[in-house]
């Protein structure tokens, strides 16, 4: 949303700058169980985004005052590596943006993880952006869902997230960095595919009611593709072992 007079042309001859149509996703690749030390982990490559997600726990909630006697608490840390983007993203440690994304990500998983099974414990979620190209919070949530599932923590759903936005008259899906910077609106959405529950909806800029419903339609359509990739990633390590003995 920088806008200004030097706004680049984002749609040329009916195609976006990277050659995609309005409703096209970037290529998504997920690998589950990347980190051996974590209880659950995943690595995602979403276009040029490269993100690691790791889940530790449930373990004893320390410091004690964060513990909830009724349910587990999730702590989330989203962080961008200092080398992750073309612009400088701080040296290290969370900034205002990272704290916000950590909070909304945590709230997504508080809805789907069965926290009541582990009262008084905590679950740590780490999302580390190694390379960013727009839509990292959506990609982070998608990877974190796989990390949660691969850790064995019970969940009611396997959420995914993707962003939609508006460039001029067009509603577009999955904005990359340059589109994100110069678009008229950007709306990341996280959905639980089982009931199509909205778990996260943020918006930067402005979109009409019709555009939003069109955007949400695009999200659910793209969601079936993302969900398939998530499921395939979770099954892959097991199928690899099984295939040795067929």
């Amino acid at each position, binding site marked *: 949303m920088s806008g200004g007079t030097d706004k680049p042309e984002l749609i040329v001859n009916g195609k976006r700058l990277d050659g995609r149509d309005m409703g096209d996703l970037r290529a998504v690749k997920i690998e589950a169980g990347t980190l051996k030390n974590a209880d*659950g982990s995943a690595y995602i490559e979403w276009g040029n985004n490269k993100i690691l997600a790791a889940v530790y*726990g*449930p*373990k*004893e*909630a320390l410091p004690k005052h964060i513990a909830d*006697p009724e349910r*587990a608490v999730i702590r989330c840390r989203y962080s961008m590596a200092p080398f992750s983007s073309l612009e400088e993203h701080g040296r290290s440690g969370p900034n205002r943006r990272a704290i916000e994304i950590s909070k909304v990500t945590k709230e997504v998983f508080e809805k*789907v993880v*069965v926290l009541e*099974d*582990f*009262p*008084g*414990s*905590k679950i740590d979620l780490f999302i580390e952006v190694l390379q960013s190209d727009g839509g990292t919070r959506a990609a982070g949530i998608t990877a974190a869902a796989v990390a949660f*599932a*691969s*850790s*064995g*923590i*019970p*969940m*009611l*759903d*396997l959420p995914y997230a993707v962003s939609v936005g508006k460039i001029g008259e067009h509603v577009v899906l999955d904005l990359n960095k340059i589109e994100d910077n110069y678009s008229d609106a950007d709306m990341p959405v996280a959905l*639980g*595919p*089982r009931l199509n529950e909205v778990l996260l909806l943020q918006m930067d800029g402005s979109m009409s009611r019709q555009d939003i419903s069109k955007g949400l339609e695009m999200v659910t359509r793209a969601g079936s593709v993302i969900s398939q990739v*998530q*499921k395939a990633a*979770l*099954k892959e390590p*097991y*199928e690899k*072992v*099984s295939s*040795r*003995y067929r």
Partner: protein
Amino acid sequence: MGTIVVPGEVLERFNGRSDNVFFDGNKAYSKVLGIYDSERGMLTPLEGLWYPRMGDTVIGIVEEDKFNIYTVYLNAPYKGIAMSKFIEEPLAAGDIIEAVIKDIDRTKTAVLTRVRKLNGGKIISVKPSKIPRIMGHGDTMIKQLVQGTKCTLVVGLNGVIWISGGNYDLAAEAIFKIVEEAHTPGLTERVKELLEGKK
């Protein structure tokens, strides 16, 4: 073998109750990554956590000796406690014990009974969801391990295995093979080959 299901995936037919399944309306859904056998209506978790239950045999490490209570680390978010007056030999922090869960209190702390100190040996920790496979149907797998390696094995349902004597390296190799290939058929035979080949 069945199909692999992910959390939130609907199970066409499901018999009975399970920690790994939830119901919404009249449909059953999986809570975990698991193998669903639609013929028998059963879900076996591939990844899962251990919930302390009464009667579970566990292996823990003594963490602290507080006057008349020992607190025990159980490889879980919850601790175990053991009353020292019911234990014959005194324990110290760092001791490995085998015990049975007698009760679970309000804060999910497991009260332990029949505490037995395990002297020497080594412990390895595996995913608790793989323990049933390590035991095998009717304990066939574990018996085979004991026979093949001449080790003394104590298996805790919390995912901790204590190994003493015999061929430790072979026992550990076999256990890790079982963990990795737990979802494949014909595993008992392959473990047998491994044990016989390297005896």
